């Protein structure tokens, strides 16, 4: 063990923070090293000298502290025993205002932004299959009675188809038909027309 290392470890030994192993190594080194023994002695004398010349506070200062402690203790005791008509958790807090303001801002934001999030009838399939069936039945292609005046019947079907489409656009969720359904209907109409031709 070198002297520099020993002196550092010795500081730990003198403050009772060294492990047994470190203490043993330091003791072993001290037995053979006059410099480190002297360091230890000088450290102890230094400590003794410093402590012996320590300044002390005057009595008035001590009295001030003790009387402050007394006042503080009395105040703490009276606060602890003071009756409280309203439970602490119900007392007004500024956080409540912030919370209420946040809710108002959120509601206004949702109100303003809601039209932007409305579902377009042209993009989304309607899931009300029952209504789809009803409309499909209503506009289903009649197989009888079209032979005589094909053009007239075709116009009628086209109008019906147009009306259905328009309705679908105007009242998105109430009408249960989509573009895909309309296209399907149109294709059937065209097939029927081809067959007639």
């Amino acid at each position, binding site marked *: 063990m070198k002297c520099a290392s020993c002196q550092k470890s010795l500081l730990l030994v003198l403050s009772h*923070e060294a492990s047994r192993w470190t203490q043993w190594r330091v003791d072993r080194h001290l037995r053979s090293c006059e410099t480190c023994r002297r360091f230890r*002695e000088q450290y102890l004398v*230094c400590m003794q000298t410093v*402590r012996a*010349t*320590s*300044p002390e506070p005057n009595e008035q*200062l001590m009295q001030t502290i003790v009387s402050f402690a007394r006042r503080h203790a009395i105040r703490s005791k009276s606060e602890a025993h003071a009756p409280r008509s309203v439970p602490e958790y119900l007392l007004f807090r500024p956080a409540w205002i912030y919370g209420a303001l946040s809710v108002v801002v959120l509601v206004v934001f949702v109100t303003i932004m809601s039209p932007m999030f409305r579902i377009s009838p042209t993009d989304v399939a309607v899931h009300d299959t029952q209504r789809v069936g009803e409309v499909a039945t209503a506009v289903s292609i009649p197989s009888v009675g079209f032979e005589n005046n094909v053009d007239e019947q075709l116009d009628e079907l086209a109008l019906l188809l147009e009306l259905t489409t328009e309705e679908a656009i105007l009242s998105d969720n109430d009408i249960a038909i989509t573009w895909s359904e309309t296209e399907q209907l149109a294709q059937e109409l065209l097939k029927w027309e081809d067959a007639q031709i």
Partner: protein
Amino acid sequence: MRENSEGREATAQKERALLQAYRRGEIRALGDLVELYRKPLYAFIVRMTGSQHEADDIFQDVWFRAIRHMNTYRQKSFASWLFRIAHNVIVDRARHRKVEGVVEPVTDGDTPQENWIEHFADPGPGPDQIAIGRETATRIAAAVAALPPEQREVFLLRMEADVPFKEIAAIQNVSINTALARMQYALEKVRAALSRELEVVP
């Protein structure tokens, strides 16, 4: 104050008992606690600031803060907690004065530095005590005041207050090796200043 680990443990037990008594409402217990740290804390503050007048303010402020937060105190060592408060108060005051680090003490002839030296504690007669005069006190004060603030703090916490290096490192927010190195440098300088007194060592 305390000379060995048993003594340190005994002091810790005494502190705990006094704290519990104070929390139960016994004001006298706090008086005893203040008395226990009266000298080391005050000496630490005086030697850190170099001014007795400022040290009085800080000493009072430290105890006021400690008393206000006594009920929330949960740490293992009361000494570390108290000296950490003192460290923070000193550093805060130094910052307020726009001084980097800890306040440098004034070391002129008729300054507050001299003021407390006139009233330094009388070591009292004792067979194993060395004779210490005013000249020695002045030399120690000058040597300690000449140390850089970080080294001075480590030196005083160890020498005056017997705070372990582990806790000194925590107070200064450095590693224990750094605290030890600072102590070594500080000791070297103080030993040089106290060469005459240290010559009596066989």
